[in-house]
């Protein structure tokens, strides 16, 4: 009986671990650009390059490297272009903040218009 419980326990947890790793793999593959494809990520592509990068990412995960370390390694070889989500830096801060600025600006305009309408109605 004990043996059966141990086997079930082992199978359950080994399954959970493999799921976790697979999710991490896919997450990384989806954020990597296939440099020889037209608008495809490494996850979507079956090109030689994509297959090789997948193998390298798998190895790095098995070596215990974090997502950040894997991205940094690939960026050091292929430049920022290889990642779909670029790192925050001086050159791209507008890319990160502009949508929020536009949102805030839009909200201010809407607020001003509503206020103006209310004032007009009150008068």
């Amino acid at each position, binding site marked *: 009986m004990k043996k059966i419980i141990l086997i079930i326990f082992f199978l359950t947890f080994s399954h959970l671990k493999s799921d976790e790793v697979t999710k991490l793999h896919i997450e990384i593959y989806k954020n990597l650009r296939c*440099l*020889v494809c037209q608008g495809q990520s490494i996850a979507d592509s079956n090109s*030689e*390059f994509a*297959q*090789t*990068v997948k*193998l*390298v990412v798998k*190895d790095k995960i098995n070596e215990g490297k974090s997502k950040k370390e894997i991205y940094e390694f*690939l960026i050091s*070889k*292929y*430049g920022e*272009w290889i990642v779909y989500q670029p790192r925050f830096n001086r050159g791209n801060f507008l890319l990160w903040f502009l949508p929020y600025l*536009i949102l805030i*600006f839009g909200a201010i*305009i809407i607020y*001003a218009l509503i206020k103006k309408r209310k004032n007009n109605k009150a008068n």
Partner: protein
Amino acid sequence: MKKTFLKLILFALAIFIIGTFYVGLKKTEIYDTKNLIGTNLDNFTLNSLNEDLEINQELIKENQYNLINFWASWCGPCRAEHKYLMNLNRNAKNLKLIGINFKDDKKNANKFLSKFGDPYHYSAADSEGKVSINFGVYGIPESILVDNNLKIIKKFIGPLNQDEYKDIINLTK
């Protein structure tokens, strides 16, 4: 006053968006990994294609100049550049050619070398292609000119041509 300010902001925003698109669309740069020029090679270990020998960065340190060429028997453009590699073997005195056979079948690779000639001083095999990532390779053929300090002097993406052949001869004089 408020209206003028609002108009000014909208105008600036429109100019910014148009400007961004204009600059972006005018850019005709083709992606490459030439940013690696001037950097040093990472340590690597590969097995020799035919001999019981390990090919690594120590071998590169022994030669004044090294041309690391990624190739495969299934790669069409590799055939096109092969004559330049053969000429480099004959004419570039201070240069050693290191061929890295990429994701290939050993039998086919050897058949290719017997048919077209073997220009390489050392032949290594990267059967899974994983080591190529350390060199920033994203397609073959690709050649990397490296000095004995492991410094990348130049990268040649795609098949070598006559101009690049002359360039390598001049750089390794």
